[in-house]
Structure formats: structure tokens, C-alpha cells
């Protein structure tokens, strides 16, 4: 093969294409269990990207993500249901996302005024109040038992098992198979738009907000507006994730949208690496897939007993939670830029080994999908001078 062809094959568009092709294959080879893990992971990734924009890039601690996910999930379920508003499902889905964004916007007066840890707890309030509403507003939410989710139809095509069966290349395509491609499309859309935001003017403004609101303001960033916008955008991604989750679960219940879910998302972006789309995705897959995989392969894991055995023994869910909690602590204290940071550093080390001159230009244009800047928070060991100082003037 010629040099040019090889070069082309190694280039970014080629890699992306290859990845896209690979991602289209699973429905043909994997069973529903794996496809569902994939679906949940994709939905989680969309939500995690949203939270990453808010907490990782803009630096606003939010424990309220579950609330906006719920709006997306329940919003779609209610709007598309018949009896009920009976909107065409695609429209219902869009409305649900917009509704979630609007909720984020409604919260923005609080977000604009309340800062830091106070904001974190205020968002906690959202989750609890939201959960309460889900439990009590029976007519819309179905109360404690939740409600079923109408399947999505797009131009006559239904994303659910149909009768007669749809067979593609010899493989029967049920709900999971069809939803897989929807998930991929939505995920790709998320990746594209979030990347655009992070790399562009809004992303820089949000990052500046995190590092120093004063510097950002002085450079012309309308702080209050951007803090509000961060919430709106992140809520819209959460709403989208909620819709996909609802479609994948086919049923929504209030107890799912709890503080634990918000914490899950926080864990995803922490473990994956704050402030990058790739990191959020990696974290989402880790947090989503781990407990499900451990449950499935419980008997093959040392120390772990099968689910449902004697109380007090280490079941797979508990084992997964231990790992999960430990991962959060270890990552934060020892590798604060998460999996993504680790990957980036590993790649930099490999690159340095390949170029013996080892120039002083670290990979500013690193991976294809992360924000161009090392937008993750500085590791604790970084020289004090680089960290933004709290005092910005001598009296």
C-alpha cells in the first residue's frame, strides 16, 4: 500500500468511520442482555456529557441531574401517551427535551445567585422535591408504580418489536436492536454538539467561569447568563438521556430518579475525567456496565456470592458498589483527571517515546474528541502559582 493511503487510513476521519462501522455491528451479533447494557450506557453517556458541561467545564456542582432526567423520561411518557395528550412520539420526545431545558432555565435564578457547595445542596433539593412530585402527581406520573412508556415511532417505523418480525440480514430486529441505532444517532449528535460547545466560544467562557469568575467577568463574559445557560444546556442533554432511558426501560418509576442516580452521574464524570466528552462517555460505560456485568458473572468472581443468597454475604450488587465507591475515592485522590486523563498521559508518554527529540509541545491537539485544552482540574500536586489565587489584589 502506498504511503499516502496508509496516512489516510491512520487519519482521524478514517478512525471515526471505522469506529462508526464497528458500532453498527453489535445488533447482529449480541443478544438482548448486551444490547441493553449498550443502550443504558449510551443514554448514561448523553446524560453524563450534559453533567460534564455543567460540573466539569463550568465547575458548578450539581446533584440534581436525576431531576432533569426524570423530566425527560416522564415528559416523553406523558406527552406521547394515549389516552392523554397523545402527541406523535417524535414530537413528544422533542418537547420533553425542551421541557427539561426550560426546567433548567427556571432554576437558573437560583443557579445565578447561589454558588459553590450551596448550589450543590440546592440542586439536592430539586431531586427530593422532584421525587415527591413524581410520587404524588398520580394522574400524570402514575404515582409510586410509575407508568409505561409508549414506543417511539418515526415516520411509520416503530422502535419496538413488531408483528410481523423485521429481519435484517438474517437477524430478527426487536426493540433493542432498533433502539440501538437510535441510541447511536442520539449519542453521535451529543458528541458533535458538545464538542462544538467545548471547543468554541461558549466552552471557553464556561471554563473561565470555573477557574475564576472574576477573570471571566473582566474578559467580558456575562457570568450570570452563562451560569444559567450551563444549566439549561446540561438539562437538555439530561432530558434527552431521560427519553432514551424511558424507551429502553419501557417503564418509568419514581424511585429510579433518586439521589443515588444523581450520584451515579457525578461518579461517571469523576471517574471518566471532568470536562471532556470522551471522559464522560468512558465513565458512563464504567458505571453503567459494571454492576450489570458483575451480576451476570457473579459465580465467576472470587469472593462474590450469587444474588439472593444468605443475607450478609457479598452479593454482586454490593461488590459492585464497593468497587464503585472505591473508584470514586481513588480516582479523586490519586488521578483527578480520571480515566481520560490517564489515557491522555499514557498516550503522551508513548508519543514521547516515539519521537526521540521529545519536543516541548505536549499534545494540545490530543484525542479526536476531547476539548482542546486540558480542561480537567489541576492535580493537587501542581505548583501553587498555577492554581487561581483567592486574593487577586493587595489591599
Amino acid at each position, binding site marked *: 500500500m502506498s504511503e499516502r493511503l496508509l496516512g489516510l487510513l491512520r487519519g482521524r476521519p478514517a478512525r471515526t468511520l471505522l469506529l462508526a462501522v464497528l458500532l453498527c455491528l453489535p445488533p447482529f451479533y449480541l443478544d438482548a442482555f448486551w444490547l441493553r447494557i449498550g443502550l443504558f450506557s449510551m443514554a448514561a453517556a448523553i446524560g453524563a456529557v450534559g453533567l460534564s458541561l455543567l460540573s466539569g467545564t463550568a465547575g458548578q456542582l450539581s446533584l440534581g441531574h436525576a431531576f432533569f432526567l426524570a423530566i425527560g423520561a416522564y415528559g416523553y411518557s406523558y406527552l406521547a401517551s394515549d389516552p392523554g395528550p397523545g402527541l406523535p412520539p417524535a414530537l413528544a420526545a422533542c418537547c420533553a427535551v425542551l421541557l427539561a431545558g426550560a426546567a433548567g432555565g427556571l432554576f437558573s435564578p437560583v443557579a445565578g445567585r447561589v454558588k459553590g457547595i450551596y448550589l450543590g445542596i440546592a440542586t439536592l433539593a430539586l431531586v427530593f422535591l422532584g421525587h415527591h412530585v413524581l410520587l404524588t402527581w398520580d394522574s400524570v406520573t402514575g404515582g409510586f408504580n410509575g407508568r409505561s412508556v409508549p414506543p417511539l415511532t418515526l415516520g411509520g417505523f416503530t422502535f419496538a418489536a413488531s408483528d410481523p418480525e423485521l429481519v435484517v440480514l438474517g437477524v430478527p430486529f426487536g426493540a433493542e436492536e432498533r433502539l440501538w441505532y437510535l441510541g447511536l444517532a442520539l449519542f453521535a449528535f451529543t458528541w458533535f454538539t458538545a464538542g462544538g460547545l467545548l471547543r468554541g466560544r461558549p466552552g471557553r467562557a464556561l471554563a473561565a467561569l470555573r477557574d475564576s469568575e472574576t477573570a471571566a467577568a473582566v474578559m467580558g463574559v456575562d457570568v450570570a447568563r452563562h451560569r444559567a445557560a450551563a444549566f439549561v444546556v446540561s438539562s437538555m442533554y439530561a432530558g434527552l438521556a431521560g427519553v432514551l432511558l424511558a424507551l429502553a426501560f419501557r417503564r418509568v418509576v419514581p424511585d429510579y430518579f433518586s439521589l443515588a442516580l444523581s450520584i451515579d452521574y457525578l461518579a461517571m464524570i469523576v471517574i471518566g475525567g471532568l470536562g471532556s466528552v470522551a471522559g464522560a462517555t468512558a465513565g458512563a460505560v464504567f458505571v453503567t456496565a459494571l454492576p450489570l456485568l458483575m451480576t451476570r458473572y457473579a459465580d465467576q468472581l472470587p469472593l462474590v456470592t450469587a444474588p439472593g443468597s444468605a443475607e450478609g454475604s457479598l452479593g454482586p450488587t454490593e461488590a459492585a458498589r464497593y468497587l464503585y465507591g472505591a473508584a470514586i475515592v481513588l480516582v479523586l485522590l490519586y488521578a483527578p483527571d480520571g480515566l481520560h486523563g490517564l489515557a491522555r498521559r499514557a498516550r503522551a508518554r508513548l508519543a514521547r517515546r516515539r519521537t526521540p527529540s521529545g519536543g516541548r509541545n505536549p499534545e494540545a491537539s490530543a484525542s479526536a474528541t476531547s476539548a482542546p*485544552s486540558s480542561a480537567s482540574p489541576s492535580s493537587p500536586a501542581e505548583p501553587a502559582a498555577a492554581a487561581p489565587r483567592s486574593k487577586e489584589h493587595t489591599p
Partner: protein
Amino acid sequence: MNDRTRKAPPVLQVRDVTVRFAGLTALDAVSFTVASGSLHAVIGPNGAGKSTCFNVLSGLTRPASGTVTLGERDLTRLAPHRIAALGVARTFQNIVTTHGTVADNLMLGRHARSRAGFAASALRLPGAVREQRAHLARAREIAELTGLGPHFDSPVHLLSYGDRKRVELARALCLEPRVLLLDEPVAGMNAAERARTAAVIGTLRAELGLSIVLVEHDMGLVMRLADEVTVLDFGRTIAHGTPDEVRRDPQVLRAYLGTGTEEEGAA
């Protein structure tokens, strides 16, 4: 895209500005005028209120009374980002850079001059992409102007202190300001870096026609560059005038030295 119109910058007037913090009067009826295109230095011993003054000028602190006007516009109660939009840029004494590369920091400085919103950036509309490219080119120009060319893609935290100070300056320049507020631009630098920075500041004034307000302790720099000097002590203006006039003013000498008759030499 060069919008450095040679229109003279408007006059910056500070009139009777008073700032109080929990009982302490940080600034007491401070007034001075920065003539168009001039370099005005604000000096004074530590605690005199110089940085507070800057915070008022850039909108970070609201004065209890008094006004700040830029030409016809009243800046006194404007939010910092609006003041920036009007063309007033400042640097900070303790460097406040964001994470990322020099390019990232400079591009933040272009925020006020660019327009791409959330939707346009998310959807990567061609207008937004083009705008970004143009601003990146401009940022690179400004980096060259301030000697940061070779470091354009380097992470800021890897640079030397002097270089990081220059990033502060370059970022402020990226705003294409008409008035530049420099808060101790040479603090902590060695002699060579000081000379280089002084030269850059001189060039900025000469070539870009900016008005510059300078807070500095380095007397040599002030005397060499300033057209006019305002001296603060305990929040009050104690002297005004050209560097020579101020240097001989007995009040100033007393404020700095207490009793001595010799002037304080350059640091």
C-alpha cells in the same frame, strides 16, 4: 479584521470615588483623569488603595459614591462584562489564567469581540467556525506582538513566571481595548524581563494609541513611561502631576519614606 481604528480613546475620568469596606475607607474621594492616549500611573505605598481603585474601574467593586466615566459613558455601576465590552481591559496582580494553553487564554480575551452563541457553536455552523478561525489568527498575532509566539500552544502552567505575566497582558490586549489597566505588570520579574515588558508597554502606547493606567511599585518604570502620575496614600490622593513634579513633592516623600529627603530608587 483589524479593528484598531486610530480613533483616539475616550477620556477616562474618575471623580470623587469613595469605597468603604466594613468600616474601613479604602478610597476617599479619589479623582484623576486619564487623558486620551496617555499613560497614567497610580502609585502609593502598600495599602494605599491602588488595587481597590482598579477594581472600581473594572466594575468588580461598587463605590459608595463618586463616578467613573469613559468619554460620555458612565461606568460606575456597570457590570464588569459590560465595562469590558466598552473597551476597558485589565490585568491582575496575581496572575489569573485559566487552565489550558496560551491560545485558550488568549481566546478567552476574544470573547467580548466575538459573537458565536451556544446554538451556533453546538451545531458548528460555518459562521461560527469561520469566526473562531479568524479570532484564533488574531490571537496569534497578539501573541507574536507580546513575544509569546513560540509558546502559543503550550499549557500555561508550564511557562515561567515572566511568560505567564505576559499571557495576562496579551489576553487583555485580545480585547482590543481602548483603555488598558495594568496592575503591577512587572512585579516579581528580573531586570531583563522588566526591560522587555517596559518596552512592550511603550510600544503599545505608541503604536496602538491606547490609554494606559498603570499601578506599579517600580519607580524607574513609572518615571520613564508615565505622562502623568497620581499618588495615593491611605485611600486619598496626595499628589498629581508629571513624574518630575511628583518626585519632588514633599507629601509624597513623606508618605513613602517618612522623614527622608532622598527619593526612593528604582527597585
